[in-house]
């Protein structure tokens, strides 16, 4: 690619990033880094997000690492009797939690594509993750 081509591409990326940044403002960013079954961290993180939204706060979710698997369709209760998280995730829209970010690198590492997930998501780069952390008043990591 020519030098000019690179410059143009970089410019477009910055513009796209700025567009996303303006969408990403909010009161609370909940980062979910654990899958649905190994621990209760995912559920307890989602609970915080729902409570904040119920109190009228603007909430965004960021799924990182194995946390991305939470969004794979069909996360049911399973034979262990743990409470599944699919039902909670399906309620997000009702609570006006519509900004669902997923870590692009983790999606790649896990062999997942946006079309494998049960809800519409925005894939984000490390730079966009960094930006999201600065554009939310509070960040909580689970």
């Amino acid at each position, binding site marked *: 690619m020519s030098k000019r081509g690179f410059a143009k591409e970089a410019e477009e990326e910055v513009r796209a990033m700025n567009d996303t940044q303006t969408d990403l403002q909010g*009161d*609370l960013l909940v980062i979910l880094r654990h899958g649905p079954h190994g621990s*209760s*961290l995912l559920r*307890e993180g989602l*609970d*915080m997000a729902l*409570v*904040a939204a119920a*109190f009228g*706060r603007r909430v965004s979710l960021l799924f990182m690492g194995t946390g991305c698997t939470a969004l794979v369709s069909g996360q049911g209760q399973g034979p262990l009797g743990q409470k599944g998280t699919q039902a909670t995730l399906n309620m997000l829209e009702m609570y006006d939690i519509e900004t669902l970010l997923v870590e692009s690198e983790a999606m790649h590492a896990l062999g997942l594509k946006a079309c494998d997930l049960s809800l519409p998501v925005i894939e984000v780069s490390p730079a966009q993750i960094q930006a999201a952390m600065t554009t939310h*008043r*509070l960040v*909580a*990591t*689970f």
Partner: protein
Amino acid sequence: MRYGILLLGAPYSRQASHSALRFARALVAKGHILDSVFFYHDGVYNAARLAAPPQDEPHLMDGWKALHDEHGVKLDVCIAAALRRGLLNETEASRHGKEGYSIEAPFALTGLGQLVDLGLRCDRLITFAP
């Protein structure tokens, strides 16, 4: 600065509680305000009133209590996380028909709304996770 602490790690199983307590002490020593500690996930076990660790180990529950007594730090425990792990105050124990109770003041059972408010009113909310 005004700080809040979110503690998710179980006492003695994980480093989280020890680190959080040391961080809390360092904050007040430096003249910062520690508003509250919010105990969530396995962190709720820090509030167990019956904890009896060996004498040659730090007594974490007493450590939190001392922080409350000396500096007025609020000790809030997530009620949903606590109840399912067997941590109930006298009121909850009687509501659920249990003979004993396992949490007492200055630890207070409260909801996640308190955690959100804490995070938003503090300059920093520091999480100590397992």
